[in-house]
């Protein structure tokens, strides 16, 4: 590889020791920017030969520490493999390299009548490879499903350096669904080098509603009632008053700042159905105490409402310098109860919490706001986070809906799974990576993870010279 695509200077290695999470402790080894599958193979083989681990990396927008390098691994930055290789309308797929940015792909496909359905909030910068690694979601996964449902095939460089094509363009590829096992594996099974993503037809009609409520409970109950009525909207997003105020100050989208909560609901599809469903959602909202039901009248108004939702996290910067974004899922019927517990938890720890979340999926995103310069605040943030997880699990929920486990939640895995369950997850992992060289130290708790983690973690900073 050309010299400019292998970096080993301290500044860059330090930069890539982090992702968008609050976690640190990572030490990067050399950083490679491959431009072909063959180069990724070479990197894997060299790493294997020298007994080193590798950590694939996309845009570094992960929030669970999945991309932080543990044990001075080779960081394989996939950002230069960013070509849209082929759009195959007949097979309803696009072949892309993993460094393609999510929104760039959708922008490229839109004039052709299609888009890539998963739309994480970070879609302006996050990569398809990162979406595959994390099985990413987004507001519109309510109706369309998360990334796994939109990946037909993946070319993967295995930790051995061999190349495998997982899945296929047909509906029922022969053999085990190794594609399904790879999606969401957080870089621990190998490195994706080409991905066949499913094309979703752009809906001809869209209705976007903004419902205001006097309480978060009323908004949550509306979401449950809509699903119970057999309506599956394209998206149902809730923002509480604090975040709505922040968003409104930031983008001036016309959000009501006096409502305790707003529900952004979208239905798409054919002309009659979107009106039938939009009317029904409005009625369900009013029956559950909506103080205002507003239907976006123009495409501009619609776009502005979504801009507000999607820039919510950027809007936080004006309130406090730091935030910790959580990600748990609860049964939809438990949303209101768990949210009340989350406000109480934040109060107990004297923290400000804002809630903006994928309500339709029961996917909560409590946002703890703080100033890291305040002594002792990080301890309170982590304690509150632990209690939020406990409350979510007690309601029948799970640890993560879309951010993944990374290093953030690996020690919580034993709360959800038995030792036998985790052993089977480790068996899946070891089939791909018997020596645990791909992104070691992630997902599984230390006791169930690769045997060499401790050794990797103890590699001194200067080992790569």
């Amino acid at each position, binding site marked *: 590889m050309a010299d400019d695509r292998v970096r080993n200077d301290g500044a860059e290695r330090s930069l890539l020791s982090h992702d968008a999470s609050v976690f640190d402790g990572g030490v990067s080894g050399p950083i490679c920017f491959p431009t072909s599958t063959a180069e990724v193979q070479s990197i894997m083989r060299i790493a294997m030969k020298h007994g080193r681990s590798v950590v694939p990396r996309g845009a570094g927008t992960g929030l669970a520490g999945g991309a932080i390098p543990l044990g001075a691994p080779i960081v394989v930055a996939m950002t230069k493999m960013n070509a849209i290789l082929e759009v195959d309308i007949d097979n309803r797929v696009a072949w892309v390299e993993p460094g393609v940015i999510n929104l760039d792909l959708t922008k490229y496909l839109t004039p052709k009548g299609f888009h890539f359905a998963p739309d994480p909030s970070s879609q302006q910068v996050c990569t398809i490879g990162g979406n595959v690694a994390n099985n990413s979601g987004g507001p519109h996964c309510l109706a369309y499903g998360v990334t796994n449902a939109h990946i037909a095939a993946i070319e993967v460089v295995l930790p051995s350096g061999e190349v495998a094509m997982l899945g296929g363009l047909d509906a029922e*590829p022969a053999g085990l669904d190794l594609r399904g096992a790879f999606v969401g594996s957080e870089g621990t099974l190998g490195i994706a080098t080409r991905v066949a993503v499913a094309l979703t037809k752009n809906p001809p009609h869209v209705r976007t509603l903004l419902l205001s409520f006097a309480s978060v409970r009323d908004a949550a109950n509306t979401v449950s009632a809509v699903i119970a009525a057999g309506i599956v909207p394209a998206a149902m997003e809730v923002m509480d008053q604090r975040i709505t105020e922040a968003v409104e100050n930031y983008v001036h989208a016309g959000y009501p700042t006096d409502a305790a909560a707003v529900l952004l609901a979208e239905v798409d599809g054919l002309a009659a159905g979107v009106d039938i469903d939009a009317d029904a959602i409005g009625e369900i909202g009013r029956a559950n105490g909506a103080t205002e039901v507003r239907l976006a009248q123009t495409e501009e108004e619609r776009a502005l409402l979504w801009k507000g939702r999607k820039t919510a996290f950027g809007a936080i910067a004006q309130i406090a310098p730091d935030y910790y974004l959580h990600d748990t899922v609860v049964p939809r019927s438990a949303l209101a109860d768990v949210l009340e517990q989350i406000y109480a938890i934040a109060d107990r720890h004297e923290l400000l919490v804002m809630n903006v979340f994928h309500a339709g999926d029961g996917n909560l995103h409590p946002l703890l706001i703080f100033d890291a310069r305040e002594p002792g605040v990080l301890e309170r943030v982590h304690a509150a986070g632990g209690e939020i997880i406990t409350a979510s699990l007690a309601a029948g929920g799970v640890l993560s809906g879309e951010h993944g486990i990374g290093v953030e939640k690996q020690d919580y895995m034993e709360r959800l799974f038995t030792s036998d369950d985790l052993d089977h997850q480790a068996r899946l992992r070891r089939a791909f990576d018997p020596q645990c060289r791909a992104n070691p130290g992630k997902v599984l708790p230390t006791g169930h993870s690769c045997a060499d983690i401790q050794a990797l973690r103890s590699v001194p900073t200067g080992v790569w010279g």
Partner: protein
Amino acid sequence: MSSNTASLMATLTSTDPVLAAFADQVGSEGPVAIVGGQTRWSTGGPIDPAARLLHAPTGIVEYIPEEMIVRVRAGTTVAELHTELADRGQRTALPQRSDTSTVGGAFTVGENDLAMLRRGSIRSALLQVRYVSAEGRVITGGGPTVKNVTGFDLPRLMVGALGTLGLLAEVIIRTNPIPAASVWLRSDVADPFRARDAVLAPSVVLWDGSTTWIQLEGHGPDVEAETASLAAVGSFTAVDAPPALPGERWSLEPAALRSLAGTNSDRLANHDTGAFVASVGTGLLFAERPQPSRAISPVVAALSAQMKQNFDPTGRLNPGRIAGTN
């Protein structure tokens, strides 16, 4: 908190004595195979005659329509499940091939429903899986919520694995609302590929080389409007049901179906199907003659063998079956 969510909480770790009894039956030694409805009994090769034959436990454990999920034991028939769900206006992505086909069999084989364009793929319908391991232990993968990225995706690995990695005991499945209106249409002149593109989201598009059938589902007025828009492609008339499907199942890239157009000799050169009914948009095809063995690359075959070795080192689970062979 509602009683529904409380009962889900209790299920994160299995305490169901029925599953424990099933695990005891499986035990930890000797070849063992599971009999479902035997709808697809020959898929993946003949079972080793030395294997003990067992049935998976039955029963719908918990159905929560407002969460659009159902927890059901693997030996339950798809017919029983769908009857229960239909009472609340819901269904699943599971094919209901016969009255005796089981839920566990459907996931184990991994074949999709004919209407997968609308209902989604079977592999995406599985939220949580409980299976008995080669060691005779009940293992849980996934979780009860519709969205979940907590840990490695054991549910996806189990779909279509033919029971070679674990024996399905219980699943939580995503349900879908049954649309208000449904119609089957037939045309002897329409091009099936143009027909597929003329509507937003057909549930099924079938084509036998000359006749096209389309199923449209949704709100009544939308189904009517979509029916009207098909006129641009050709004359369609409403029919009661789709055609009977030949017995051999093929899985092709959707675009490959175009090569079935033309004369019989052209067709033979491409795919030796005999009489066929193709599912346009999915690439599934039902034919007189079986699909030739599909190649699995040596790297993927080795990876699959390693997976089998890790999950079932003595090869006791459904011995004789190999995922990926016809």
